[in-house]
């Protein structure tokens, strides 16, 4: 089926099978391998992307459903070589260990801060319920989210 959508600001028309998941479309068809497929059971959140501004699990959506939508992946958050404030904060606060969950974490925190620019620690932890870090590196992920909020407020 033919779909037209916007990915990371670029208009795009593509042919997809009805059964193609958004995550597979992004990774295999579009080469956007920053979005990770972690669990296969809609639980881990490594595959999160923004669809029309909301964080969603790209393994739980069909690509055909995205006709007319605007998708932002981890690749779309930085401006060329310039990292987004959330990405910078994850680097500075060491908000990652193996890094596999990081794309989903960064997308999720980006969405949180767009909706709630100054979240409490408890709000950050609740928001990240859908993002699993199997290294259990949550302390620094939460610190990174707090640092990102400060950076965005200062900017």
């Amino acid at each position, binding site marked *: 089926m033919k779909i037209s959508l916007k990915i990371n600001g670029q208009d795009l028309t593509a042919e997809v099978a009805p059964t193609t998941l958004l995550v597979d479309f992004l990774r295999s068809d579009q080469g956007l391998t920053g979005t990770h497929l972690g669990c296969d059971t809609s639980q881990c959140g490594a595959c999160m992307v923004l669809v029309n501004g909301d964080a969603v*699990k790209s393994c739980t959506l069909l690509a055909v459903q995205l006709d007319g939508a605007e998708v932002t992946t981890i690749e779309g958050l930085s401006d060329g070589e310039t990292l987004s404030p959330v990405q910078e904060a994850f680097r500075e606060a060491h908000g990652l260990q193996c890094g596999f969950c990081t794309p989903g974490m960064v997308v999720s925190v980006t969405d949180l801060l767009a909706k709630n620019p100054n979240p409490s620690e408890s709000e950050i932890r609740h928001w990240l319920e859908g993002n699993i870090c199997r290294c259990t590196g949550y302390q620094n992920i939460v610190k990174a989210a707090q640092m990102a909020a400060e950076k965005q407020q200062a900017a």
Partner: protein
Amino acid sequence: MYEFDYVRPTTLQEAQDLVGEDKKLLAGGQTYMPTLRQRLAMPELLIDLNAIPVLHGICEADDRISIGAMTRHAEVASDGLVRSKIPGLASMAGGIGDPAVRHRGTLGGSLANNDPSACYPAAVLALNAVVHTSKRSIEAKDFFQGLFTTALDEDEIISHVTFPSVPCAYLKFKQPASGFALAGVFACKLDDGFRLAVTGAGQEGVFRWQQAEAALNNDASFGDFKSLALEPDMIEDVHADADYRSNLVRVAAGRVVAQLREQLA
């Protein structure tokens, strides 16, 4: 996934004309997509309800709040009208799954699925909401008919649900990995008295705890829920045995009724 065809109608009538055996509806997909991926379903056609505008949105009509079947949990949780008129429903919707689930999951999808551990059935049953479909209106008491079973015909589509504006509260003990209720209690006070609906616990799905309702109607300050009989057989699984679940229901009822009393005061 097994192969299927996909269609995205823009009117309820188009969807109605297509739906039937092996021609299944796709709402938010937060249960159905994982089901498809595990090859537990083999539809011939998937009818995506996401582009039908009339199924979205929240409004007030005739003293009731009407919520479209495709309205997302995140919208219900943050909507000013719902928060002020049916506070327990807003807080319940804000606690379903995780933010990504709440961005996609819908009221109608949750009700049509009738998972015995889902939150929405408790709210709809306690509030005596009315489920409006492409064919008729169904009162909550007639809608839920056991595990994953509802009054809906195979070719019937939920359009919206109407709720009364009343003080209400919801509390669940959740299974930490999924966010589903190990035991959840929705409490409200309607014109004819207190109503408590329990999800996550009963083997036959959501139920009203009539002994607790009677005790509260007899004495609005009643608090000894541990002394009351809890008749339905409780779910037993790796997360909680029957006795533990019964206890969770009683503790949740005590806490949620305390929240309700604050609203009524």
